[in-house]
């Protein structure tokens, strides 16, 4: 574990990403104390620019505090990112494990099923699903999970395929262990590193997807989100740039941080690859 941390620290970008990410989490956690009350309430005169009338990041067209919106929006963005990624991992890892370990017909069936989802443009599918199930936080999470599990299934299948032929798995086979216990205790722990790296990137893309859905007005109407803030500021962007720009920066920083952390994790989990990359540069 100490070793892991030492390797992670070698990637300066990853440390910066982790710090940003922790700040965002902190912001989300302290939102109710920093900005008590609902972010939907009027807090000042409409269209106040940043810094005026005690509004750090200005107000929107209805006089709502943009800073409060961002802080409360962080809660929703992180929540959606985490929950939908967890759901996508559950589906993707299970299907990928079945395909990779059993091989043969099971593999063919699962992979064709996966391709069926991959052939539909994911954003269009997400819009469609949210529209069908009426926008709510549940349907948004569901839609994002549905469109983001196929890459997980493919990665897990590839890992399982290569690990299945390794001698320690054959040894477990010869010891007479059950299939389930071989998959859970022998193969899965050794396939974890790519899954961890992939999931950090999936959280980032889930946040982007959620923002895009909210921007189109398909977010949960009762929850303040970053995408909604940008969407509502879109029509007055020349008049009040701050309404769209600050939530945009929030999305940008969070997604960038997650990507940096993902790369750092990948370096720390595959030290040999990282060293080669460093050596070539």
């Amino acid at each position, binding site marked *: 574990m100490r070793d892991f941390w030492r390797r992670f620290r070698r990637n300066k970008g990853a440390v910066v990403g982790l710090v940003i990410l922790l700040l965002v989490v902190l912001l989300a956690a302290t939102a109710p104390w920093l900005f008590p009350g609902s972010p939907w309430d009027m807090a000042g005169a409409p269209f106040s620019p940043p810094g005026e009338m005690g509004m750090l990041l200005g107000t929107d067209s209805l006089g709502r505090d943009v800073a409060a919106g961002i802080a409360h929006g962080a809660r929703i963005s992180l929540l959606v990112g985490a929950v939908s990624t967890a759901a996508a991992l559950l589906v993707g890892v299970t299907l990928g494990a079945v395909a990779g370990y059993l091989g043969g017909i099971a593999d063919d069936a699962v992979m064709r099923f996966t391709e069926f989802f991959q052939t539909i443009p994911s954003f269009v599918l997400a819009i469609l699903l949210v529209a069908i199930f009426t926008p709510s936080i549940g349907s948004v999470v569901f839609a994002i999970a549905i469109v983001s599990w196929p890459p997980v299934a493919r990665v897990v299948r590839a890992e399982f395929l290569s690990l299945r032929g390794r*001698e*320690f798995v054959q040894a477990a086979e010869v010891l007479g*262990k059950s299939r389930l216990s071989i998959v859970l*205790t022998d193969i899965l*722990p050794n396939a974890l590193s790519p899954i961890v790296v992939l999931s950090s990137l999936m959280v980032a893309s889930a946040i982007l997807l959620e923002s895009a859905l909210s921007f189109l007005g398909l977010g949960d109407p009762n929850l303040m989100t970053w995408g909604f803030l940008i969407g509502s500021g879109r029509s007055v962007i020349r008049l009040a740039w701050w309404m769209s720009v600050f939530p945009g920066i929030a999305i940008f920083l969070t997604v960038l941080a997650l990507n940096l952390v993902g790369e750092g994790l990948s370096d720390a989990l595959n030290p040999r690859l990282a060293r080669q990359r460093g050596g070539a540069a």
Partner: protein
Amino acid sequence: MSLLRVDGLTVALPPGGDRPHAVEDVSFHVDAGEILCVVGESGSGKSISANAVMGLLPKGLPVRQGSIAFEGRELLSLAPEAMRKLRGERLAMIFQEPMTALNPLMRVGDQIAEVLRVHGSGADAARRVPELLAAVNLPDPAAIARSHPFRLSGGQRQRVMIAMALALEPALLIADEPTTALDVTTQMQILRLIREIQSRRGMGVLFITHDFGVVAEIADRVAVMQRGRIVEQGPAAEVLNRPQHSYTQALIAAVPHGAAQARAAITTAPVLELRGVEKTYRRGGFFGARAVVRAVHDADISLRQGETLGLVGESGSGKSTLARCVVRLVEPERGTIAYHGTDLRPLSRAGWKPYRRRIQMVFQDPYASLNPRRTVGDTIAEGPVTHGTPRAQALERARELLRLVQLDPGAMDRYPHEFSGGQRQRIGIARALAMEPELLIADEPVSALDVSVQAQVLALLAEIRARLGLTMLFITHDLRVAAQICDRVAVMQRGAIVEQGPTSEVFAAPRHAYTRQLLDSIPGRGWTPPEL
């Protein structure tokens, strides 16, 4: 003046390694027309020395001291451009892995022509390429020149590599374990070829190897390396038969003798009988031709209680497939696998489970056969736990087994990466023994190990077998190892057993032509290691 003279060469290792220098104060020389063998175990610095001569050291390994003089010129101070010109033209190298050293997308002839072209003699490539391919004894050079590397066997590729190295008639050939990845019969052909070309052209050869048999076969002079230093150097006959340094003596004592002693015939009841087992691999279909490989056929064996049967053959002979059929890692299409009279082949996964206790396996690769994320204790205990032994009891037993395989019981809570190859192989053996099996299948258990470690593991296996009365099916490609440990041997070729009998009889009077060929190919068969 020597062709190549290396003086006091010291190459640093990156900080944090197990020693400060990869090679330290190494001095040797190669004269025109002689073969110098550098012998050592893995990590002894023999390849680093060779790469230093070629100017191919990786960035992390800087030369700290010393000089490398080639034909009177100092190589270490040479500009990269001048060194590039020298490489290929005067200095040539062949590598261990003929599979990856050739460009897979280029025809073999074009690759050799490229060497000529780069050094400015591309004009007569059309004439020289077939000539070179013929010089390395490849049949039908014109056809070989037109084929891509994947069409060629390992031995053929290594010949192509040698042809490439010889293209510009270098004065010094460096061969880094050129036969290690090859089968024993191919190895012998390549060794003869290098010998022949060397004497025909009067080249100097720097030959890196770990195998004393190969040394006995090919060397004029020998340098023995241990942990980055040359501990002994001298004429081959001198070093092989009267080694002075204790390390050389230990290495030579560890070489399997290859002499099979007669053993009493075993007449106990059969434990395992294979009848008419067949396994065929099919691939392709849809587009292109279907390829059918008969991996195992006509391979009937029977194994008596307490007996060790050696299954010997070259790569692709089907010996591992046959062994894997017995433990059902591979499912054969036909035949009976009778264990004490019960046919195991038609059993279901659940039906097999009771037999898992009785039949266990030791794997080849000590680095791949242990789960890297599980402690040694759990690895050894997991088999019995799976079969219902309480965990505490299984762990207690694991501790005893570690003592049995001569490891410290303190190893229980450590992870596999903290152990060396030989220690890992002991852990693998302990894992198999934890089930208290009656039949042990050992699939090349020592071929990934250095020779001194190999000797220890073989001794351990022999001792355990005697103590526990194990029956063993021992798969190996190394006839010297088979001679040392097996009561009977079965020789496999292309999926079939061509000869079977008591080890001493097969070695003394082989009946099948292929067995004779295998025996003739044992490197260093003319050399009997001295009793030390």
